[in-house]
């Protein structure tokens, strides 16, 4: 058994298991840790697919930056108590599982038609990576994809602005008095289920 097969069959189940773990555990911190592990397994897959640069980026950006940010927010908000176990929405979990299975089945069918389950990737990927993967990527990125690359900068500015606008509002003009003033009519103005919709139509308990 070739090495890459072994690696795949080790890490793929692990990947799925950690994904499931992330989904089912109660504690948010645990879930985040499962996700980090999952990201690692995906990084391994990148390695198997001859994408060493992305392997590195995956670990640095995802496992490193993004998940840390997640954990940070989890801690910040103090919501590490964990989710309640009960499902309040009728049939939500069952349907979710069914839909998940269905979408896998559909995509699998499409893949089978479009790629074929036994097709192996052709050899000769090195030819597409002159001077090594990172360098080749840089070639493509800064020539063909220079414009999208510039767009990402706009995206990041927007993200920064967004974070700034959303996060800075406490410190600015909205005073406690203003909040109190409007709190009441907020609820009135927005709690507008159509009259005549009986209570029983609303799901779950408040």
């Amino acid at each position: 058994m070739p090495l890459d097969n072994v690696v795949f069959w080790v890490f793929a189940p692990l990947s799925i298991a950690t994904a499931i773990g992330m989904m089912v555990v109660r504690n948010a911190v645990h879930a985040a840790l499962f996700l980090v592990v999952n990201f690692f397994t995906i990084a391994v897959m990148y390695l198997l697919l001859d994408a060493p640069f992305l392997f590195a980026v995956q670990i640095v950006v995802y496992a490193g930056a993004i998940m840390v940010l997640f954990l940070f927010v989890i801690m910040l908000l103090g919501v590490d108590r964990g989710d309640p176990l009960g499902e309040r929405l009728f049939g939500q979990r069952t349907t979710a599982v069914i839909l998940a299975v269905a979408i896998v089945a559909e995509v699998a069918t499409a893949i089978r038609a479009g790629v074929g389950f036994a097709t192996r990737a052709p050899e000769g990927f090195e030819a597409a990576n002159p001077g090594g993967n990172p360098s080749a990527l840089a070639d493509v990125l800064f020539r063909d994809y220079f414009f999208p690359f510039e767009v990402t900068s706009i995206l990041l500015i927007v993200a920064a602005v967004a974070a700034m606008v959303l996060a800075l509002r406490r410190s600015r003009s909205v005073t406690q008095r203003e909040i109190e003033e409007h709190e009441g009519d907020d609820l009135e103005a927005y709690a507008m289920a159509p009259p005549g919709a009986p209570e029983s139509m609303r799901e779950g308990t408040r």
Partner: protein
Amino acid sequence: MIDLIGLAIAIPLVAAGVNMLVGARLGRYAGWLGTGAMVASFAIALGALLDLLSLPAGDRTQVVTVAEWIRTGAATVTLDLRVDPLSITMAMVVTGVGSLIHLYAIGYMEHDPRPGRFFGYMNLFCAFMLALVLANDFLLLYLGWEGVGLCSYLLIGFWSERPEAARAAKKAFITTRVGDVMLLLGLFAVWIHFGSFDFDTVLGSEGSLPEIAAGTATAISLLMLGGAVGKSAQLPLHVWLPDAMAGPTPVSALIHAATMVTAGVYLVVRTHVLFEISEVALIVVAVIGLAGALHAGFASLGQYDMKRALAYSTMSQLGFMFLAAGLGFSAVAISLLVAHAFYKALLFLTSGNVMHGLHDEIDVRRLGGLVRDMPWTAALFAVGALALSGLPPFSGYYTKDAILELASHDGEVWTYVLGSLGALVSAWYIARLFFTAFIGDRRYEGRAHEASTLMRAPLVVLAIGALFAGMWLALTPDGRLATFLEPVVGTVAEGHAGPSTQVLVAISVVLTLLGIAIAWRLYRPAAAERWISFPEREPGLAGALGHAFYIDDLYAWIVGTVGLRGAAALERFDRIVVDGAVNGVGRLAVRLSGLAPIWQSGRVRRYALSFLAGGVALLVFAVVRV
């Protein structure tokens, strides 16, 4: 004058317009205007008659084009009037009797607040009636036909504040409308078969018969008969006429005795060619006539309301006319029509005098002995009654006798026997009216006042007519009128051998006298207690007679109970099912929309679920090939 015959219609029409629009300002002159118009119309008709008489018998059908009516492409429809012996006879009756009744009405309606309207309607009626009889095609005839119906409606309901008058007017219009519809269908059939409504085309001219199969002729003539039956209040569409007496008495006299109700007879006579081709239709006419004559005659015996009794009498007499026409004696039918116009108008107007003199009291049980307060009226009524009962030499004798004689010749014994029975009953009921109302003890309070001269004068003229018309016009099968009518209605075929004329006359007179005798036996002053309490003693028989054998009640039940319930059910169906379905769809949509909160619950995970489900569903299109 023949060319001016259009004026005979136009003058009353204009007078009607004037009276209806500004009648309120005219006051009592309204009546004089109306009467004047009628007299003028009469004069024109008379002139036309004289002109006609001056022509040879073969040329006595004149068509006068009054106006161009419809012009489409090549075809031009003109408004034509037909002056021939039949139509001019009818026109004479309408204008003559009409003039007299108008004159009478001036006095009769003098206390009414709306004489303009009344005379307007009356003139309008005469105009339509003249259009009906003078028409040269079925379309104009139908116009007149419906027009007189309208006037009848308006005049019966003239005192519309009286609920019974309003009801009767409606009933009259609707009932005759049933007949009218059949007539209309008949016209359609005529159009389809002949492609024309022209009398010459449809009925044949110059002695030539129209080309038509017997079956088609039967269909057409029976449909026309339907119209005639409705208008002439014959079985089974007779129920409106007694109720129509709720109208002012001159109306009853003019419309519901002398003229409009005879339009049916006129129609049958006018189209007799078709009936004769059909033969079946002719028999139906005779049967309906005979049945009507007997049914109405007996029904008249049960009436205590003088005008209702006279109304049934009218129906009975019309039955005789139908019988005559059905037996093929069109000329005789018209003779009876003419004679009847005189004496029945007379009878109605005298009863009008009674009402006028007694504050609208008309129930014979509360009359009696009127001869002392109203000698003129009583005498005039007697003349009319004798004419109706058919004693010689009154006009009724000639016509009735002619019918019976011809019936006896025709070979069908039953027509003669039943016709004779009808004659007997006629004498009986009219004598009954005279005995109960005019002689014996007074059963009313106060004093009746005799009618004014204005109201008596026309009656005298009518009485003279009732007396002498028979003799002068010789209303016999081979008399002057019949001869005059011959070019239009054909000769009366000589029938088979039968009892000789003398024997028949004797039988007829005896029967008439017998009828009077029976009436005297039953209704003589001494027996007043007996006949007044008759309904209590014999409720069954009295009820049957009084209700005219319950036919009207049956209709009332069918229409009023079954019909109304059915209609109400249909209305509910419309509301609940048809409209309910529409509103149901609307409500369903609103209900569905009201379910939105179940799905649109505000829970973002539900939204995601919906999203994913949508994605999954959409991907089906990728993996499943149709």
